[in-house]
């Protein structure tokens, strides 16, 4: 890519991020401790909607969907559909509940439901999982830069990671929200223009010929989002389970909901958040299918990983490649920034304040959040240069949050008992570690650990929680009776 164009993209990001960040910082000088992490809990509907959509739209949606489409066809769009189901659950369920209970973090809610031990256990593991996802996003930023410029992945990760820190450091959640709103427009503009350009540049009759190619070569199922029955069960449903049971209680996705002006804001946000996230996958799938139908790209070595981006670079003029870079960057940076913020929020709220500084002033808390953002983002950029495998890392990381989902649901709607919650967490995590690092899968007749971690942790969590809850007395779930609900609000 031309140097002036690259500088243009970076200048655009810097102006939007720093400009909006500084402007918001000077406009909202609230002394409230909620201001930085939760935007004073007054974010309007469009900002909440776009932030929810972009928080769970990152590296895996771009590079992962390109690769999966190449291997299995349009059924790969189910990665996005799984996120639509997730956003529906959050906007009509878990997002409303955390907003109603007025908590700042998921571990804080678990403290109210079970006790401090559960809070600390979940804080440490959730922050660890979020850090793992952060390294993947940092790597994604590096790969996007390396593909579209002549930089190496490490340089790209450093430049992108710095932009990611700036995305949140000035005004926290409020900055992320408003920058997201601007970037979402750029993202979709870039995607739509690039797709039109690809359609025009394709040999023959554009996308129609891509369809004909797959039908003539007896691969018509590649064109259907329902794929084959086998793929629907082994790919689509697996994605729905892994994404729904881990992300719906993840701090990074619930933090924008906690920052919403009201519950109604979150409910209404669904109609924007779900399509913005879901339709992104459609563009990624269509572009990847077009690349796969062209013999010159299909013949490349490692085609599933690089075929699609190579086609984009071949067909798109440099100015459009620059817009596309800006659009992909927008998607990944927003995820990077909110993950860094949610790790810092958990650390400050659930460890620093809960254990060491209960009387810390809002100013001190904001300082600690900012400090932690810079430290974790810096370390994540360094780890990203080791290039862990993206999708495998994500699936493994998600599995750690599965038991949190089940104790979250039990604590709100069924029964609360700290020992059972702790036992559920520890047994599911021990099983996840054993499944990944010992020969347990082989002993049970599986060829390898593969992507089954989410299933394994689900089974163990549900079993331990179910048996435990049936055996002990426990207190009723926080939302089961209106008096408990009122008591919660008073607390």
């Amino acid at each position, binding site marked *: 890519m031309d140097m002036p164009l690259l500088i243009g993209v970076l200048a655009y990001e810097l102006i939007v991020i720093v400009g909006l960040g500084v402007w918001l910082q000077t406009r909202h000088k609230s002394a409230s401790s909620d201001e930085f992490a939760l935007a004073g809990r007054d974010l309007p509907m469009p900002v909440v909607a776009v932030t929810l959509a972009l928080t769970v739209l990152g590296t895996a949606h771009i590079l992962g969907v390109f690769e999966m489409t190449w291997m299995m066809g*349009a059924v790969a*769009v189910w990665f*996005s*559909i799984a996120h*639509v*189901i997730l956003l*529906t*659950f959050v*906007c*009509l*369920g878990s997002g409303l509940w955390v907003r109603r209970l007025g908590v700042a973090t998921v571990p804080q809610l678990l403290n109210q439901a079970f006790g401090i031990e559960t809070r600390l256990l979940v804080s440490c593991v959730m922050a660890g999982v979020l850090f793992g996802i952060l390294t993947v996003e940092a790597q994604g930023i590096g790969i996007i830069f390396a593909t579209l410029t002549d930089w190496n992945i490490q340089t790209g990760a450093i430049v992108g990671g710095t932009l990611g820190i700036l995305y949140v450091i000035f005004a926290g959640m409020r900055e992320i929200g408003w920058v997201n709103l601007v970037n979402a427009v750029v993202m979709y503009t870039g995607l739509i223009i690039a*797709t039109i350009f690809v*359609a025009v540049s394709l040999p023959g009759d554009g*996308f*129609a010929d*891509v*369809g004909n190619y797959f039908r003539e070569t007896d691969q018509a199922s590649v*064109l*259907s*989002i329902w794929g084959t029955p086998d793929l629907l069960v082994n790919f689509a449903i697996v994605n729905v389970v892994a994404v729904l049971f881990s992300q719906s209680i993840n701090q990074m996705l619930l933090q924008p909901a906690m920052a919403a002006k009201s519950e109604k804001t979150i409910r209404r946000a*669904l*109609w924007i958040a*779900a*399509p913005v996230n*879901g*339709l992104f*996958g*459609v563009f990624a*799938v*269509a572009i990847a*299918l077009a690349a796969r139908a062209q013999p010159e790209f299909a013949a490349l070595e490692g085609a599933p990983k690089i075929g699609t981006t190579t086609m984009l670079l071949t067909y798109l003029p440099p100015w459009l490649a620059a817009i596309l870079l800006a659009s992909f960057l927008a998607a990944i940076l927003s995820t990077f920034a909110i993950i860094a913020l949610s790790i810092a929020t958990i650390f400050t709220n659930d460890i620093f304040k809960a254990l060491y500084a209960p009387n810390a002033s809002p100013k001190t808390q904001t300082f600690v959040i900012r400090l932690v953002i810079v430290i974790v983002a810096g370390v994540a950029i360094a780890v990203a240069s080791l290039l862990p495998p993206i999708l495998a890392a994500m699936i493994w990381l998600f599995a750690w949050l599965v038991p949190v989902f089940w104790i979250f649901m039990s604590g709100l709607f069924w029964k609360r008992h700290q020992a059972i919650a702790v036992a559920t967490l520890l047994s599911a995590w021990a099983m996840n570690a054993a499944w990944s690092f010992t020969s347990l899968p082989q002993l049970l007749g599986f060829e390898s650990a593969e992507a089954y971690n989410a299933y394994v942790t689900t089974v163990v969590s549900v079993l331990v929680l179910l048996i435990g809850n049936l055996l002990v007395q426990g207190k009723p779930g926080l939302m089961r009776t209106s008096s408990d609900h009122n008591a919660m609000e008073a607390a």
Partner: protein
Amino acid sequence: MFWQIFIQSLVLIVVIILTGQGLAALINRKHGD
């Protein structure tokens, strides 16, 4: 080809949202929320 995938996905997204809203309304009514 593009429009076929686009429309299939859009319809699926709308169905998921409406199903979610229907389920939520049903559960809320049952619990008198």
